[in-house]
């Protein structure tokens, strides 16, 4: 867990895209939903993306642009129509054990304690309960839920539940952390707090993160790069390198440089006059 990702200096986007040992590789990805009575819907078209090991990448875009579909394809939950998707050298044709995922709702099981919830991936994948039990405790300690390990989810606030959800996504030490609008249901204050927490967790764990969000400032604050998708069909409109110094705190967001990034990304939304 103390493993820090090596070489986190931001490099030009072009370098990343030609990087052959990229940790996540998406090439020529198309997704078309076939409908019985109407025209097929093209959700994603020609997506090419490479993510380096330890990188934090966000995906933003207008409503219905297919950003959640893209994440679900990475997670192996949704099949693709065309293209290649690789994670840590494995072709994605179903859920990979290398994946940890955080969902829009915390999705904790109410009949399990917080600790038992965090250990769900360990149980499912038949990993060593003792070894990973210690890791679960460590993670809960790290997100400040140590004393709530034996509580049940209904005893926790929304933000605490989502933090437990993040622990669950990390417990089996996955190569990649996928996050699907994880803070969308939280109030603004809690959300900012969770963003800071997430940065801290990311820095301590050194995971590769792909985060889908509809908050542009959130994407800028957290990410090394922000992938901007266009309205349907979802294509990559731009990949923005966020060259703000790390470690970051919330004061960064008041800076002019952050504002420039936010504006630059927002322009894409204004062009289509659809704001998520």
């Amino acid at each position, binding site marked *: 867990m103390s493993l820090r990702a090596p070489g986190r200096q931001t490099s030009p986007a072009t370098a990343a895209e030609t990087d052959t040992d990229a940790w996540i590789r998406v090439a020529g990805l198309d997704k078309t939903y076939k409908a019985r009575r109407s025209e097929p819907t093209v959700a994603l078209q020609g997506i090419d993306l490479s993510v380096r090991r330890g990188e934090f990448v966000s995906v933003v875009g207008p409503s219905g642009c297919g950003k959640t579909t893209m994440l679900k394809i990475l*997670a*192996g*939950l949704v099949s693709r129509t065309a293209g290649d998707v690789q994670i840590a050298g494995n072709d994605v044709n179903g*859920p*990979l*054990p290398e*994946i940890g*995922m955080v*969902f829009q*709702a*915390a*999705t*904790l*099981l*109410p*009949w399990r304690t917080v600790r038992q919830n965090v250990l*769900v*991936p360990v*149980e*499912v*994948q038949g990993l060593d309960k003792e070894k990973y039990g210690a890791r679960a405790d460590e993670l809960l*300690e*790290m*997100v*400040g*839920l*140590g*004393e*709530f390990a034996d*509580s*049940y*989810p*209904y*005893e*926790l*606030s*929304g*933000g*605490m*539940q989502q933090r437990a959800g993040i622990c669950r996504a990390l417990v*089996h030490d996955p190569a990649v952390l996928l996050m699907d609008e994880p803070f969308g*249901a939280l*109030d603004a*204050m*809690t959300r900012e*707090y969770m963003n*800071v*927490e997430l940065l801290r967790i990311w820095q301590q764990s050194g995971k590769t993160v792909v985060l889908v969000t509809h908050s542009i400032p959130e994407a800028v604050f957290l990410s090394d790069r922000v992938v901007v998708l266009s309205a349907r069909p979802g294509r990559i409109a731009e990949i923005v390198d966020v060259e703000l110094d790390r470690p970051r*705190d*919330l004061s960064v967001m008041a800076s002019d440089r952050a504002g420039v990034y936010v504006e630059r990304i927002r322009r894409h939304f204004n062009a289509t006059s659809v704001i998520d």
Partner: protein
Amino acid sequence: MTTATPAGSTVSDPPGRSPKGSAAVERKSRFDVRERPELLLVPAVFVVLILVWQFLIPLFVDDYVLPVPSSIVDSLIQQLTDPLFWGHLEVTLRESLIGFLIGVGSAILLGTAISQVRLVEKTLMPYVVAFQTVPKVALAPLFVVWFGFGLTSKIVMAAVISFFPMLINVIEGLRAADADRIQMLTVFGASKLQIFRMVRLPSAMPFIFAGLDIGIVFAILGAVVGEFIGAKEGLGYLLLQTNYNFDIAGMFAVLVVLSVLGLLAHFLIRFAQRKIAFWAEESRVIAA
């Protein structure tokens, strides 16, 4: 945000309402009459009804048609001190419980198969729906013909009548699992069996307990109806005997015993539900 220690970070968690606080408040007001006026009103209504029955009704209705509460209590005490009565009670209890276990057990097995295997569902569901519309009580004479005047016909009746509410609850319950929870387990690589064990079964627990609750009351009903048709012992038989003898107070005494039996069974199952499916009542508190 400088949250160095874990303890510090929980304290500074913005949605700072104490998660355990509401439980404490609930406990305090549980027996507070101002919070729950029904704690006073329910017994009050009971007392008023009994008083009206004891002192007002006899002015209009003869005692041998509708006996007053005091004669029912007399009759009840007489019954409870009679070893013969306890024999009848034991027979009915045995019939109900065995029938209940058979009915509920087979409903759980069949319901699981129907909810999990498409082919079983498609094949058997029409029959389930068809049999469900049959008034089960009307089958009792048939069962007496088939299985005789002994315990068996009553056990079959109790089993059949407690089977259907349980079956419907098992099928509904196993389908009630939240799609997001199933997706969550899928991402982490869970097999179908693991998803069943870790999400579908626990999700069905509140439904299964609802089925048990209805089922146990129905099983007692089934046993008593079976005894009506043809039996030499049991509370249903006793009910008919008192009826033939025009011992209306005695009938009421048996009815009181049957009601208490149903109530006890109901509370026993509610107690088990609180212990086993403890999350069901609190689960609506879980934030989206």
